[in-house]
């Protein structure tokens, strides 16, 4: 049995889903999970987490209300030393990725980031992660160590474990006298117009659309399907579609009945936001585009050939 220490993630009073995915790790690596939650007024969240953890360690302090890697590390250091875990798990997120490399350096433990699978093979820890823009899946072996640090890709550890109803322990925290980093505020992206997360049919465009003028083609197809147009990050960054139409990690997560990906290569940041769609059809010129890994139907071809063909057939009925 391994001792797995999970660092819970929450924001604005809500537990981030990646926390529960990390608690599911005990279905990949037989072990006992201890979940650490740091924050202010977190009793309710600790309660909720305790259902899926063997133990919960709760540290409350005003200074821990919002994530600050400088303070979070100080709070975690003592717990890590006392608990001496075999595996420390964090999310491959803005929070996890500001902490994990730091922890790895401090305790001199191997770190594997953005993993999609973990297993024990002949006493060694093996992990899988995507490299080269998601085209390649690498299998990595972690060098022998007392402790390993991992960050997990969101949406990959969904196999749910049984309820555990672990005990909650509270620990105290004294912040260091001087700190050089300060949280100021959350900045919310403006919300206006169409809510793509509620659409049943989404026609989504990527870099392959080539030019702002070609968005019209996607709109025509969306209209024929009675759906809405969305886009991947390069299209939003170019200003061809408004920010609220962005699908992916820095945009919206969507689960429509149909997701039609036009000229989207499928960076993982995008795939995380759409892979649970009921039916995914991808059209891309590059046969190795990672979008084909999540698609149900794939067309290797030019969207400027296929899309007009689809529109014509739809119009004919």
């Amino acid at each position, binding site marked *: 049995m391994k001792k797995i220490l999970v660092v819970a993630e929450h*924001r604005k009073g809500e537990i981030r889903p990646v926390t529960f995915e990390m608690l599911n790790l005990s279905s990949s690596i037989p072990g006992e999970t201890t979940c650490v939650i740091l924050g202010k007024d977190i009793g309710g969240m600790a309660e909720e987490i305790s259902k899926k953890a063997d133990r919960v360690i709760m540290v409350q302090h005003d200074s821990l209300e919002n994530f600050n890697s400088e303070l979070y590390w100080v709070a975690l250091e003592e717990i890590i030393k006392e608990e001496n875990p075999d595996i420390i798990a964090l999310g491959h997120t803005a929070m996890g990725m500001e902490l994990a490399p730091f922890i790895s350096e401090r305790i001199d433990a191997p770190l594997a980031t*953005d993993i999609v699978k973990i297993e024990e093979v002949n006493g060694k820890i093996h992990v899988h992660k995507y490299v080269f823009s998601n085209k390649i899946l690498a299998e990595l072996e972690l060098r022998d160590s007392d402790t390993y640090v991992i960050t997990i890709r969101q949406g990959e550890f969904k196999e749910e474990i049984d309820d555990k109803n672990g005990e909650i322990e509270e620990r105290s925290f004294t912040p260091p006298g001087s700190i050089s980093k300060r949280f100021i505020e959350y900045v919310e992206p403006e919300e206006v117009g169409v809510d793509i997360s509620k659409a049943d049919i989404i026609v989504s465009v990527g870099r392959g659309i080539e030019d702002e003028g070609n968005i019209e083609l996607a709109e025509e197809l969306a209209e024929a399907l009675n759906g809405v147009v969305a886009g991947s990050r390069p299209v939003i960054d170019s200003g061809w579609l408004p920010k609220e139409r962005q699908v992916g990690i820095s945009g919206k997560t969507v689960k429509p009945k149909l997701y039609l990906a036009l000229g989207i290569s499928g960076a993982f940041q995008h795939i995380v936001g759409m892979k649970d769609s009921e*039916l995914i059809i991808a059209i891309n010129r590059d046969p190795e585009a990672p979008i*084909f890994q999540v698609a149900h139907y*794939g067309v290797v071809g030019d969207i400027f050939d296929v899309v007009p063909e689809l529109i014509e057939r739809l119009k004919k009925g």
Partner: protein
Amino acid sequence: MHIAVGVKQVYDVDQIKIDPRTLEPVYDVPLKLDDLSRNALEEAIRIKEITGGKITVIILNGVKIGEAVKEALAMGGDEAKIILSEGGFLDTAITASAIAEVIKSLKDVDLVIFGHASVDTYTGQTGPRVAEILGVPVVTQVRELRVNDDVLTAIRDLEDSLEEVEIKLPCVITVTNEINEPRLPSLSQILGARKKPVEELELSDLGIDLERGIEILHNRAPRVERLKRIYRDDTDIAAREIISELKKEGII
């Protein structure tokens, strides 16, 4: 202000093909300066335009280094430190130790900038590791940065929102691609880059433990499990069957 920028040379991943027999990647593609390294460098140049100072470019690579360094100097780096390795995979812990050693030897660095992850291995570890080794704070995934004397204000990317944080110099920052539009050097800048000082250092001389971290067992294209049907070339058949599938699923 003395700014150190850690840059990386990577394979052009858009061009990487897969060997259909072994499912392994074929590395017969050009090397280039990583996209987010350009953003990191561009941000350093913009800060230097306001505060004055110097930009030191630091790069660790095996064989065939050169173009990436020339490009970084042409964009606006003032000098470069190249850490030469024997090639092969190095764990990020080793890379970060080497870069941190070079920064320590420069003595007066105020700010270190990296891309938040590279397009090839996508570990996202180098910046925070270097910060820990140097004993300074880090802010990752920065998409907007303002400098007021020795305090930086940064807007950083969270998954579904943004946050504003304040951080004191010296510190490490890692940037996302939204932060700026990297400049293309002019011909005179490209020619001028040749005269800029470049120092080569051997990784093995830096006194770093090279047996750390993780080892790659294999790199292979993932097996596709979901795909029911893939169409190639014949758009007519593809369109016909997709429409009939949509009808069957009750979508149209």
